[in-house]
């Protein structure tokens, strides 16, 4: 499923968080969105997933306009997302987290006629847990999981909805170097196996340059540059605005 945004604009007060952004994410592509803090990356995800409404512009899913549809409707059309800070259900076990997501996906969340979980939900939940490598902690309370496993569970919640497009907001945030690579390899494998259109926000340039097919650089709400790793690495505007400062900071 292809995702496309046209002339997307969002202002907070006088500040344009996203300004006239037009981008195309073809079916089955793997794209990184990078940019300095405050570049509008998370706002960009929020606009696509229906969390906030754009002031102008359109979001197109396989050519169909889904701009300003509700979060639930956009999810049902196939855009799943995971969050910068793992967004899970802390009083439930891993399996329960995934079972409620499966029930929600199957439209069984309002059911009163039977007991939870609905038939088949547990089997499907375990399949999803297996996909991200959480099957061995299925009966652990999710609040007790390690930070990395909570991030994985967050992604698994999105996967339970069988998305066609998956948005990952900093999947490696807050992880040590080794853990980051494990995470990103998992994500890459998911992308290959599930035939996803995957877009991820990332700060670790090694990861971005190694993994992403295409890189989009946002800066002050605008698209500063796009292209493959080689093109971005040698782009003077990107070096000035982002890569340069990054090395400076390090």
């Amino acid at each position: 499923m292809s995702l496309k945004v046209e002339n997307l604009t969002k202002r907070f007060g006088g500040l344009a968080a996203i300004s006239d952004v037009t981008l195309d994410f073809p079916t089955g592509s793997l794209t990184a969105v990078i940019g300095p803090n405050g570049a509008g990356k998370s706002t960009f995800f929020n606009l696509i997933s229906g969390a906030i409404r754009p002031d102008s512009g359109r979001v197109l899913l396989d050519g169909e306009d889904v701009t300003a549809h509700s979060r639930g409707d956009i999810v049902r059309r196939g855009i799943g997302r995971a969050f910068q800070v793992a967004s899970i259900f802390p009083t439930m076990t891993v399996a329960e987290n995934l079972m409620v997501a499966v029930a929600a996906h199957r439209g069984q969340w309002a059911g009163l006629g039977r007991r939870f979980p609905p038939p088949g939900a547990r089997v499907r939940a375990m399949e999803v847990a297996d996909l991200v490598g959480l099957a061995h902690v299925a009966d652990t309370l999710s609040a007790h999981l390690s930070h990395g496993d909570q991030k994985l569970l967050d992604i698994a919640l999105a996967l339970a909805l069988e998305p066609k497009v998956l948005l990952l907001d900093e999947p490696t945030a807050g992880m040590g170097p080794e853990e980051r690579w494990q995470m990103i390899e998992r994500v890459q494998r998911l992308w290959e196996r599930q035939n996803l259109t995957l877009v991820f926000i990332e700060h670790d340039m090694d990861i971005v340059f190694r993994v992403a097919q295409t890189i989009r650089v946002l800066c002050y709400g605008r698209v500063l540059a796009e292209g493959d790793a080689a093109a971005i690495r040698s782009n003077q505007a990107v070096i000035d605005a982002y890569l340069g400062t990054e090395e400076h900071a390090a």
Partner: protein
Amino acid sequence: MTSGTAMRDIAVAAAALAILIAVPFLVHSPAFLDYIIRIAAMSLFATSLNLLVGGTGLVSFGHGMFYGLGAYAFALLMQRTQISLAAAAGCSLVISALVGLAVGAVCIRLRAIYFAFVTLAMQMLFYSIIITWQSLTGGDQGLQGGIPRRVLFGFDLNSQFHLYTVSAVVMVVGLLLLRHVSASPLGATLRMIRDNEPRTAFLGVTVWRAKLTAFVIAGVFASLGGILAALFVSGAYPELANWPISGQAIFAVMLGGVSTFLGPLAGAAILLALGDAVTRFTEYNGMVLGLVILFVTLGLRRGVLDVLTEALRRRRTGPAAGAAE
């Protein structure tokens, strides 16, 4: 596995009902039977509140409105119409569902503290209608003159024994139904909302619909408690609809515990027993109750039943697992 838990709950309910029905043959104390009847009313009220508080994370300060509404609607229908007791009770529940739908539609979109305040405001509005509409409600005197035609499926509710039996059955069946709601897929969805509302919306759940459904169900079961209260006091009085009654339900929920299904039932039993015992020794019963509640909330930091189940689990899994908590 799914039907297994349902069967277990039904078995527990059947056993509890058998014990309750045996009580009058073993304990010859009218005061004790009255106590159980009051628990029946209060436990339905408090457990339905906990579907919102513990089950959904919606702290309502105005749940007593539905308790009062059940009592008044039922008493009015019995006094002013000729319909049977069962029909009057059924109509009262339908009225409560409709009022719940209207009040809920206004309230459930509000965030935590605003939800609490607006539910409280709704109850105070309801209360002032009762006080001022004297021709219908009897104003601050309440609906006196008793409840006629007190016969239900051959049970003559003028007899304490029959009223007791009916109350016990209504309580057990009502709690079993509420248990089923919280164990259903909708109940799981409500726990999602309690844990993480934005994430729930991002998983495709229409959050306001789930909340509104919970609000209506809770209102209906609170008014079922109110109907039992009206039968017990043989009328309907403004105290049944005033805001302290909401406070009582909140106390019961806090005393018994929010995370155990039977917590509010335990809380209701403790609260009523405490009230009776303390009134016998001092007129400052409000102060004593306040101290007990302070002790439980600040000292135990959880309800009594929460603490007990936790202790039981620790004993079962050994001290090591308990220490890891």
